[in-house]
């Protein structure tokens, strides 16, 4: 039989052979492996560390991943004590999710030069920072400078509606405001306005300490007036005042940006890093006609708020000390690389983490000056995410509730929000791990 079946196992052995190829090679001395999501700002930052590695004879291995799988993949590695990455991209959304597996970073050179506020997303249980920032990502209100004078830029919700409506009637623009609304895009419409109305997602408002939130029982604010008003504001925008397209409930950031860039909207809200994109004449019809402004305020709050969060790097706790040392050196070199950080800002719009550079940049670069004014210099900073393992589930649940409320009748909004109380609470407290 052996001879007769000679040809058969070929395919099988080929499979096994390929399986052997798939195994990861052993870690070499003096090598830094970096895992990240490929994105212009992050790429620019990686380049700084690569430059340092090349200068210091350290081998530099880049391992870019896609955003879709980044979180599960990295979570798996960290929780299993894996050492596939010496440095990995860290995000405030999962700053608390990974806290027990990441190395404290207070001893990284240059950590004294950074903004402390956004670091609130990254402490471990001992209160030490566990991340090294690579750029600020800040929510920004954009307006069309060719349609709206700087002095006429809306200062509150009512003015958004009024100005938008007026421009629509004059035929100058198709829409007043567009912004993302779907899951992972709620920031660009509902949430920023939620915060400008002195509201938040859970009680106590603006609390991010999980212990406190646990003790308070993760009670959503959905049924409170501040929250209902926010939803009603957007309902009116979509269905009554029609300054926003009805389909906006199905828009992600990209759909919204496309409409803005097609010159069909007066206002939008996006990450500041899109400033470059909006002003790129190759892609945008409104290049050179885009300005940044303070967030228009809701009826319940008078003082301006802004969010200032960071993208950061982390180091796995499971690494051996020598690797940790090497990783920290690379990160320190990045933080202190003035030239590189300025290049990062100029090339990609990713604001430098090293605040030493800010005054100089602000004096040279009017865009940075404006960004500093409307975001960094705003006194009341909100944190744009919660920091606990179930946060992704909460985000999704919230988007589903708000979409339902905004797609139905106006008078049904309270009922939908009432129903959402349990869904959102359950999403927050569901037991998927310990």
């Amino acid at each position: 039989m052996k001879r007769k079946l000679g040809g058969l196992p070929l395919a099988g052995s080929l499979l096994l052979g390929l399986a052997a190829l798939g195994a990861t090679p052993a870690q070499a001395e003096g090598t830094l492996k970096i895992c990240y999501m490929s994105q212009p700002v992050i790429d620019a930052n990686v380049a700084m560390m690569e430059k340092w590695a090349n200068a210091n004879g350290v081998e530099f291995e880049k391992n870019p991943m896609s955003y879709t799988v980044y979180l599960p993949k990295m979570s798996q590695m960290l929780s299993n004590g894996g050492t596939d990455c010496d440095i990995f991209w860290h995000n405030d959304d999962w700053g608390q999710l990974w806290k027990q597996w990441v190395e404290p970073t207070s001893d990284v050179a240059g950590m004294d030069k950074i903004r402390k506020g956004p670091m609130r997303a990254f402490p471990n249980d001992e209160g030490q920072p566990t991340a090294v920032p690579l750029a600020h990502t800040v929510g920004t209100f954009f307006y069309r400078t060719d349609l709206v004078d700087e002095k006429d830029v809306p200062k509150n919700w009512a003015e958004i509606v009024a100005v938008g409506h007026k421009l629509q009637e004059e035929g100058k623009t198709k829409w007043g405001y567009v912004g993302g609304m779907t899951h992972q895009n709620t920031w660009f419409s509902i949430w920023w306005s939620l915060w400008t109305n002195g509201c938040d997602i859970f009680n106590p408002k603006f609390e991010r300490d999980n212990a406190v939130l646990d003790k308070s029982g993760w009670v959503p604010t959905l049924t409170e007036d501040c929250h209902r008003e926010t939803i009603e504001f957007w309902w009116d925008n979509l269905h009554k005042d029609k300054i926003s397209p009805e389909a906006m409930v199905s828009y992600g950031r990209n759909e919204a940006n496309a409409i803005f860039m097609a010159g069909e909207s007066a206002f939008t809200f996006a990450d500041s890093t899109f400033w470059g994109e909006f002003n790129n004449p190759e892609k945008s019809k409104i290049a050179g006609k885009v300005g940044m402004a303070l967030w228009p305020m809701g009826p319940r709050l008078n003082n301006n708020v802004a969010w200032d969060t960071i993208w950061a790097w982390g180091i796995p706790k499971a690494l051996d000390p020598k690797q940790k040392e090497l990783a920290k050196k690379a990160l320190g070199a990045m933080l202190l690389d003035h030239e590189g950080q300025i290049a990062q800002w100029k090339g990609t719009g990713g604001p430098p983490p090293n605040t030493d550079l800010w005054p100089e940049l602000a004096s040279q670069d009017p865009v940075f000056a404006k960004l500093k004014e409307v975001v960094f210099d705003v006194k009341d900073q909100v944190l744009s995410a919660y920091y606990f393992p179930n946060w992704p589930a909460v985000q999704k649940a919230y988007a589903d509730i708000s979409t339902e409320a905004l797609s139905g009748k106006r008078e049904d909004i309270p009922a939908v929000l009432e129903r959402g109380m349990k869904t959102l609470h359950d999403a927050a407290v569901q037991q998927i791990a310990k």
Partner: protein
Amino acid sequence: MATIAGDRQTASRGAIPATRRRSRLMGERLYFQIGLILPSVLVLLLFQVVPIFIGMDASFRRWSLYDPDKTWVGLEHYRYVLSDTNFLFTVLPNTFLLMVASVSLSLALGMAVALLLHRGFAAQRLVQTVVLLPLMIGPVISSTMMRWTFNDQFGVVNAFLGWLGLGQPAWLADRWYAFGVIVFTDVWLWTPWFALLLLAGLKSLPKEPFEAAALDAAGRWRVFTHITVPMLRPVIGVCVVIRAIDCFRTFDQVWLLTGGGPARSTEVFSIYVYMEAFQNLNFARGSAAAVIGTLIIMVAGLALYALINRFMDVSR
């Protein structure tokens, strides 16, 4: 003769008792059969059966993707999924609605295209080529196309409707419009498949019944309902069963067109599982949903098969 004498060397085997002789040839045959399916069995076991069992095991445990705690929790996840109103009242109805709508529409449209192609006309080859394209292009490209075509601001469909002076619906922002786009995409993708299989079926039908019907002065519609369809029943039945089972696992189109939105209103089974596992990172609950879905489709598949057998006389 000398050239084939080598075969004689086995002469002494004649002495083996009959029972053992039998078992030897049958043994060889059995080994041969096993050898033939072995590679397939191994691949199926390693990459399908084993994962399914791991998934089933995980569905009884507390097992998140970032922290495989693996504490045994029994039926907790099943209880959750089976009492989740989204799963029961949105996801399952959507899944079956998509199945019914997509299969019946693509069957009807496919039949029409097949009849058209069967008639024969000058540009037939061109039409057949064009009809084949969606099948080759696959769901990712076509969903991307449709999403763009049905874009409420820039899409060609709305531009056309506007030009006609009709309303311009926010296609992907309304549950039923969005569902309609999903069904349309699925029909666009699968009509060619039905058309080609039905065309092959039409071509293989004997001519005599049609000639007899012509002599009996039957009209086209009567010929279609009384001769063509009954004779195509086996083909139709098999197509419907296969397509319906495949339709249950639809993922690509929904994921790329609506992602299950707005507000989970177009979520189907595969999206639900994916969301639980990769969005909520709850691998165990995703697995439990996967097991439930598998059982449902197996029962539904069997029922469908029986039903079609009964009504259609499938003689396969």
